[in-house]
């Protein structure tokens, strides 16, 4: 079932927490809402669930305007960061809660609870209380509870942020498997973690300051970000101030070769190059500078090079003998690996 935000705005007093938000999610699609704290992503999710009332705009589910509909009539499954399991109910009773609320026949309830628990690998824990489960198991129960009512839209609000890194990775795989098993289920996934968004989502909506910045496939946003914010939030990025004049792009007195048709003159533009696309040594678009920092990251080394006062990060395969800080080095990148951003203010960022 599709979900559509039609210029949805939400305010708390004088503070606008979601500003004219427009987004269409296709049936069966996994859409990640990615952004920093306070970007409005959770508010957008809560507007779909019916927990916040938009000051203006409409929320449509399956083409039907649900803006004025109370949460219990929306038929949506929701999983939140704190799991929100009912502590006084056993696992099976938690999962059966929604079915009982909908007066599902008893035999069908039993069957659907068993199926949901099986699907999430929690069948063996049906008679346990939530407090007797680990964080990951509680999260699985929360997902089983949401899926038991067979929603056509599933809302996941930072579902993995309370888990440790290993468990988070395992749960990501589980969520991907669940979606393969339920291909018709539309999922809205709120996260501030780019890895979760890139791994799971069919499309990512990048949000900042209560507004939608950009929406696209993870690959598009990563390879060709449309703004400095997206470039820095979706994957690490070198954001370098460049000037464009007469079809030539210059950075720190070096003329750069880019695959950028139709360049228009601009005093200030931003060049985005991913650190893992920057190589050590001579090559196209060579930049000479002084090594400022060396970080060993296991399989890779991060080298931070000072080029005419600007810092350029390069992630290279682990070096046997990494150069010492202060050494003059040259780094380079291929023309097709750089994206010229002409919108937004220039802010030099190298994010990991």
């Amino acid at each position, binding site marked *: 079932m599709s979900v559509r935000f039609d210029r949805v705005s939400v305010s708390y007093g004088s503070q606008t927490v979601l500003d004219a938000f427009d987004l269409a999610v296709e049936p069966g699609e996994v859409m990640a809402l990615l952004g920093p704290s306070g970007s409005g992503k959770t508010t957008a999710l809560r507007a779909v669930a019916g927990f916040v009332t938009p000051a203006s705009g409409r929320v449509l589910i399956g083409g039907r305007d649900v803006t004025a509909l109370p949460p219990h009539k929306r038929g949506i499954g929701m999983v939140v960061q704190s799991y929100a399991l009912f502590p006084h109910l056993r696992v099976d009773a938690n999962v059966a809660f929604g079915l009982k609320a909908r007066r599902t026949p008893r035999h069908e309830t039993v069957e659907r609870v068993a199926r949901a628990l099986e699907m999430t690998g929690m069948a063996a824990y049906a008679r346990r*209380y939530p407090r007797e489960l680990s964080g990951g198991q509680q999260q699985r129960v929360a997902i089983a509870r949401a899926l038991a009512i067979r929603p056509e839209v599933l809302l996941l609000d930072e579902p993995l942020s309370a888990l440790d890194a290993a468990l988070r990775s395992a749960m990501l795989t589980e969520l991907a498997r669940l979606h393969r098993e339920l291909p018709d289920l539309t999922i809205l996934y709120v996260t501030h973690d780019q890895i979760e968004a890139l791994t799971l989502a069919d499309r990512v909506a990048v949000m900042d300051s209560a507004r939608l910045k950009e929406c696209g496939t993870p690959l598009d946003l990563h390879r060709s970000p449309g703004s400095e914010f997206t470039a820095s939030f979706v994957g690490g990025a070198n954001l370098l101030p460049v000037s464009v004049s007469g079809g030539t792009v210059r950075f720190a007195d070096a003329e750069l070769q880019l695959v950028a048709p139709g360049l228009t003159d601009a005093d200030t533009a931003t060049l985005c190059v991913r650190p893992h696309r920057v190589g050590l040594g001579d090559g196209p678009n060579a930049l000479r500078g002084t090594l400022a920092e060396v970080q060993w990251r296991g399989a890779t080394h991060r080298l931070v090079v000072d080029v005419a006062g600007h810092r350029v990060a390069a992630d290279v395969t682990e070096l046997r003998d990494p150069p010492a800080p202060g050494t003059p080095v040259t780094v380079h990148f291929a023309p097709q690996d750089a994206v010229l951003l002409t919108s937004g203010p220039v802010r030099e960022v190298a994010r990991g």
Partner: protein
Amino acid sequence: MASATAGAVPTGRQLSVPRWAWTLPPLAALGLAFLYPLALVVWQSVSPDSGGHDLSAYGQVLGSTVFREALLNTVVIAASATAGCLVLGFTLALVIAFVPFPGGRALSRVVDVFLAFPSFLITLALLFLYGTTGIVNGLWTQATGAANGPLDFLQTPWGVVLAEITYFTPFVMRPLLAAFERLDTAQIEAASSLGARAPRVVGRVILPEALPALAAGGSLVLVMCLNEFGIVLFTGAKGVTTLPMLVYGKAILDGDYPGACVVAVVSVVVSVALHTLYRAVVSRTLPASGGTRAAAR
């Protein structure tokens, strides 16, 4: 090393007070302030005015109609008032905690202030409002020219129950409001998104979480109602004799100290028995999750 060990020994000796000694100060305070007066009352109840020690006062008091009526009145009024406080307190706390309205937070603070009021103040206010010569009856007689107003219940057992509900409800609300503040609102939202309407959310999500607080407030109110004296005295309820009133009548008005002590002993026994029964019933109804059950005890 040796000097360090040698230095540690005297310090250890200085602190080596026997563990049982720490229980003496509180035991002494408890004995002086509570057990000794209680023992005196029990002793007096088996020491008739005629001399000697026997249970004759018990036979006389327990066999009297006045005592049986007082016992029945006490239990009925306390149970009714507690039930009323639980229902009203839960409803009001629910509204204050979950229904956003201007002044809700201020109202919650008023509950705290209300707890500090003396019981006679509430009774006095009720007398001004609903007494036979109160404001409501006054307005009625002015408007209709009738000799008497329609309200004449304040001096009945139900008047006492109303006054006790009015006065003791905040004692149920306070722990409930604290429990509601601790409740994860995400649980309520999860229940709603799963299709539960408000009554189911209240009954299946909020109430089970609030039961320990409800039990704590209810048991407190029950004990206080069983021993309430000021409200019954102030309403001037005719024919409404409760055990505390009977103690007062026998000791102060009749000078029958052994009889008063018998009623006092019975009053203590009834309070402890009803409180124990209440806790037993409540602990059976509490959810089986260890945390909440433990919290109720």
